[in-house]
């Protein structure tokens, strides 16, 4: 019960709205430009890195929490944040290490779960 009391419900609402709005931008790109999903993911990640690097995105994160970090923009911003922090502490080497280090958990999880899933699952037809 303590956990429920610790939840910031207004933050959760802002998270829902901002996360949803970012997805609407993606949906408009899909429907209006005929870009493939790979291209859309690339656009979001790269934009995230740039927004993170110029320092805008951290305000969005402060405002919306996971509504900003869960979309791929956040993944990009996290790469940028890692690269900047690490570059400031360990120089040139840090510029190479920082980004991947900050997002290593997500990347490793995706690869690992992907491999496990391929062991267990069989391709199926879309019933749509």
């Amino acid at each position, binding site marked *: 019960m303590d956990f429920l009391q610790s939840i910031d419900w207004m933050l959760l609402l802002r998270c829902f709205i901002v996360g949803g709005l970012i*997805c609407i931008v993606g949906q408009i790109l*899909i429907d209006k430009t005929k870009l493939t999903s*790979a291209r859309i*993911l690339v656009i979001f990640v790269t934009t995230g890195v740039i927004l993170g690097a110029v320092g805008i995105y951290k305000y969005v994160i402060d405002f919306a929490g996971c509504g900003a970090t869960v979309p791929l923009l956040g993944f990009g911003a996290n790469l940028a944040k890692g690269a900047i922090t690490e570059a400031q502490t360990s120089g040139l080497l840090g510029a190479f290490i920082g980004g991947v280090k900050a997002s290593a958990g997500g990347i490793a999880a995706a690869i690992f779960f992907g491999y496990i899933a391929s062991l267990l699952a069989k391709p199926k037809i879309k019933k749509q």
Partner: protein
Amino acid sequence: MKSIETKQEYLDYVDKKSPNSPILRNCFNAFWVGGLICSIGQLIFDFCQYKGLDDTMSSTVVSIILIGIAALLTALNIFNKIGKFAGAGSLVPITGFANSIVSPAIEYKSEGYVMGVGGKMFTVAGPVLVFGISTSVIVGIITLFFI
């Protein structure tokens, strides 16, 4: 209708003939599914904080759990139905990145675990890592010289 002679005339004509996507409905679905996924992430994040993890660790836990759920739903042949319904709502959050790695891994299993699963796993998500990481290295280098 008048007769069509040039390629440009034909392309304009085709544009007119091709049905548009139901963009309003798509945006609405993308909005609430995307918002919901982020909110689930937020609850996980809050729980990590409640358990005493710091911001960075909590974010990583959120990513790993959402990726794990997306991978499981992909393997169960459910994620593609969510994706068909929600479009960008499930693509743009980190779940879309996970799905784009897990789906080719399953599909190309028939070509073997090394060149099939291992090799084709990044056919869709590879570009995301290439552009994301390369840009972050550039950002890091720029930081060194200018800040």
